[in-house]
């Protein structure tokens, strides 16, 4: 009996360990199979085209992990947008200096700023050599704007679409879209708009679906179609090769590109924690970081600056971190101004950001064409802050909650400094940190006094101000000012740039006085590029606009 039990015991234990190692080794095998095949094909192509040179591969480091490769449903995820930009062209692209360059479209013209004629490049074709025509445009728009389809594309200004930017229920056609021929189509907007806005919103922000591949799929089940797990057919200088989620994304040169064929053989986007990103820049395992999802922590500024193989520059200013006031709780503008004087923003910029940031008061970045240049910024003046608080009869016992999202270390540290500054002038602030999702939930419910986070970078100025419209559900500030509402409405409909500038300057001035939101800092992000790179760099805008020209030394 005893020996039987012994045997049973040993057997059970052995079986257990074997099962465990078997599980891991079978997955090992499949992994090796998966990874060896693409490698083989790529190296053979490279060997054919360049006989002795090793393949030109550029690796980019990012910190956030892309969630999806669906070109019409990026869900606002910047990391996904980054990798999508490598394999998907849009009609036009933007450079860092805000100039438009033609891609799939040769030109977008308009005579009345209401009807826009788009002429496609006659050579435009998908990477499987099928020509890109207006059929693809129509298919993509009808699918993406179908409210029953999972898609983040919405264009509210196009005629025939509802206010949400989608095709109204019950209809299948878009009345504002007119197909003229295989290379030309027209888009009519509901009211005249600034042509640059049209080019940015319609021209650069929409990616296309291959009609010849997806036309028979039921639109409602499009999102789960396997095409999007392996989007091999796209239109871009590079094409999809492999996506190992949370590890890396790989794209190889599209030999059938309709513009100049890319010089690089392969681009790899690696997902790394910030520490490893810096480490890999050092070891040359990556050659670039990326904006906005591959940020180099400012703590490592000196280290990266001193790396012998890296060129480090600062980007143009990015969207600021803003302190938002719940105006129903902190009702007196004097109090809000007092807070502005109390916060030691120069210290934050000099010490925390090592000078790599700008101080502005509003949400519009300093290099944006619509930035109100005449604004007199709030200075750091704690005495003035105390004075204002006294004038407003501020109760120093009153507890003020500041909600801070976790995940951005610098912002959290800036918040800590901010809190100390406010305590120093007699405001009883308590910090609460939450993950972003929880924070948004609380903020939407009005369950906060102060909160701090970054919005997005918008080219179109009106987007910075919809937050302050009194009748939007998204106005979590609950800010209500009829004068501001009027100006916002005016700005949205005015097409003349000079007149718009006047309107937006006025708007920014009012908001500057009332201060429902105060910008704390506008970061100039670090751009690290290996000295081996001949062309190519991270950028806030238009990072991949010339990706086919990117090159690396042999």
């Amino acid at each position, binding site marked *: 009996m005893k020996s039987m039990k012994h045997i049973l015991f040993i057997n059970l234990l052995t079986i257990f*360990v074997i099962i465990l190692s078997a599980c891991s080794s079978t997955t090992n095998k499949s992994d090796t199979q998966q990874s060896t095949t693409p490698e083989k094909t790529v190296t053979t192509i490279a060997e054919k085209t360049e006989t002795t040179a090793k393949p030109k591969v550029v690796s980019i480091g990012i910190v956030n992990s892309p969630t999806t490769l669906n070109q019409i449903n990026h869900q606002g995820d910047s990391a996904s947008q980054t990798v999508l930009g490598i394999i998907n062209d849009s009609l036009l692209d933007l450079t860092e200096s805000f100039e438009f360059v033609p891609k799939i479209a040769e030109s977008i013209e308009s005579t009345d700023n209401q009807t826009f004629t788009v002429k496609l490049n006659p050579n435009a074709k998908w990477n499987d050599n099928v020509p890109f025509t207006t059929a693809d445009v129509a298919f993509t728009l009808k699918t993406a704007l179908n409210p029953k389809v999972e898609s983040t594309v919405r264009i509210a200004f196009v005629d025939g679409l509802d206010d949400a930017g989608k095709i109204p229920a019950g209809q299948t056609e878009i009345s504002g879209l007119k197909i003229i021929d295989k290379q030309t189509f027209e888009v009519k907007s509901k009211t005249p708009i600034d042509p640059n806005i049209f080019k940015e919103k319609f021209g650069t922000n929409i990616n296309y679906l291959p009609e010849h591949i997806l036309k028979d799929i039921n639109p409602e089940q499009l999102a789960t179609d396997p095409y999007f797990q392996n989007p091999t057919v796209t239109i871009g200088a590079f094409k999809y090769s492999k996506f190992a989620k949370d590890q890396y994304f790989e794209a190889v040169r599209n030999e059938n590109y309709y513009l100049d064929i890319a010089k690089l053989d392969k681009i790899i986007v690696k997902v790394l924690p910030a520490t490893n990103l810096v480490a890999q820049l050092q070891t040359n395992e990556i050659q670039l970081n990326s904006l906005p999802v591959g940020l180099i922590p400012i703590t490592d500024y000196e280290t990266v600056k001193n790396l012998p193989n890296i060129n480090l520059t600062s980007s143009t200013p990015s969207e600021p971190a803003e302190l938002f006031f719940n105006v129903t709780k902190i009702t007196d503008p004097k109090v809000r101004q007092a807070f502005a004087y109390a916060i030691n923003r120069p210290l934050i910029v000099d010490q925390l950001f090592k000078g790599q940031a700008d101080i502005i008061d509003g949400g519009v970045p300093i290099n944006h064409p619509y930035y109100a240049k005449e604004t007199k910024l709030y200075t750091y003046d704690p005495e003035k802050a105390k004075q204002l608080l006294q004038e407003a009869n501020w109760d120093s016992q009153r507890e003020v909650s500041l909600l801070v999202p976790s995940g951005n270390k610098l912002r959290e540290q800036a918040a800590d400094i901010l809190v100390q500054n406010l305590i120093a002038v007699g405001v009883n602030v308590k910090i609460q940190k939450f993950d972003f999702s*929880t924070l948004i939930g609380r903020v939407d419910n009005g369950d906060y006094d102060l909160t701090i986070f970054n919005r997005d970078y918008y080219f179109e100025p009106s987007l910075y101000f919809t937050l302050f419209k009194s009748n939007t559900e998204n106005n979590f500030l609950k800010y209500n000012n009829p004068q501001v509402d009027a100006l916002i409405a005016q700005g949205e409909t005015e097409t003349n740039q000079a007149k718009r500038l006047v309107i937006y300057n006025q708007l920014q001035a009012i908001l500057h006085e009332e201060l429902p939101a105060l910008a704390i800092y506008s970061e100039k992000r670090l751009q690290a590029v290996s000295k081996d790179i001949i062309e190519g760099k991270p950028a806030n805008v238009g990072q991949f606009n010339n990706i086919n020209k990117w090159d690396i030394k042999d």
Partner: protein
Amino acid sequence: MLHYIVRRLFIAIPVLLGITILNFCIVNLAPGNPVDMFIDPNTPQQLVEAKKEMLGLNDPLIIQYFKWLWQLLQGGFGYSFSSFAPVTHIIGERIGPTLMLTSISLTLGLLIAIPIGILSAVKQNTRFDYIITGLSFIWTSIPQFFLGLGLIYLFALHFKILPTGGMLTIGGDANFADRIKHLILPVSVLTIAIIGKKIRYVRASMLDVLKQDYLRTARAKGLHAFIVTNKHALRNALIPIITVFGMEIPLLLGGSIIIEQIFQWPGIGQLTMQSILSRDYPTLMGLNFIAAIIVLATNLFMDILYFVADPRVKYN
């Protein structure tokens, strides 16, 4: 015994069901939802509602739960809310790397800790014992992320002999040697933590047992020390040892999350973090379900091992 196993298996089903219900409640208790956080503040409410509708988030919780259960009975976990890939596919891809990492570490830990622990107990209060004790204390005192970072700095940046992370060299040859190179650092960190703890447990259990009278009797009877140690003592020290190794098994799936973050190891830990932060309910439910099964299975297995290892244990 068989009766006991059958009874346990029967009970496992309602327990599993209970666990899924509890998990579902927890997952939905977390404030925020998958839609709100991806939404650009300029998105009209109508679209937000439409999206919630499409993801089935507007149905009452009970309906959502039963829809999930129905899907489960049909053999699937549904589609991820963020990537729309099938959850079974997502989890399947990640479970291998995690298991590989943790099972290798656990096995290595076992192989190193048991003999050393026994030796340490047998040679109690000798220099060997003190050194081992000291070392194991130190190993358990260092936070994992710290050790990981330190090792990366030392071996990847300073000596440049090992990679900084990942499972393979991207764009390179995925051969065996490459895999091993990538495994060394993460496995070291995990194993060191395991060894530190386990040596103490093994040693403590052995010490408890070594003091028993019947062993003195055996020695007095003239049995050789080796046999006394291994045949008699070890078997009785086995129960706590088994328990303690059993504890590690659920950690096989959950305990490597920090290592996975640091070394960019594409495993279940990372997936869990991502899913939690993005409120990817289907993936979370899938992960939790698998974790539950593993825990239940392990505990049953451990209980069976107890019975086999110690003849005095009875289940009524």
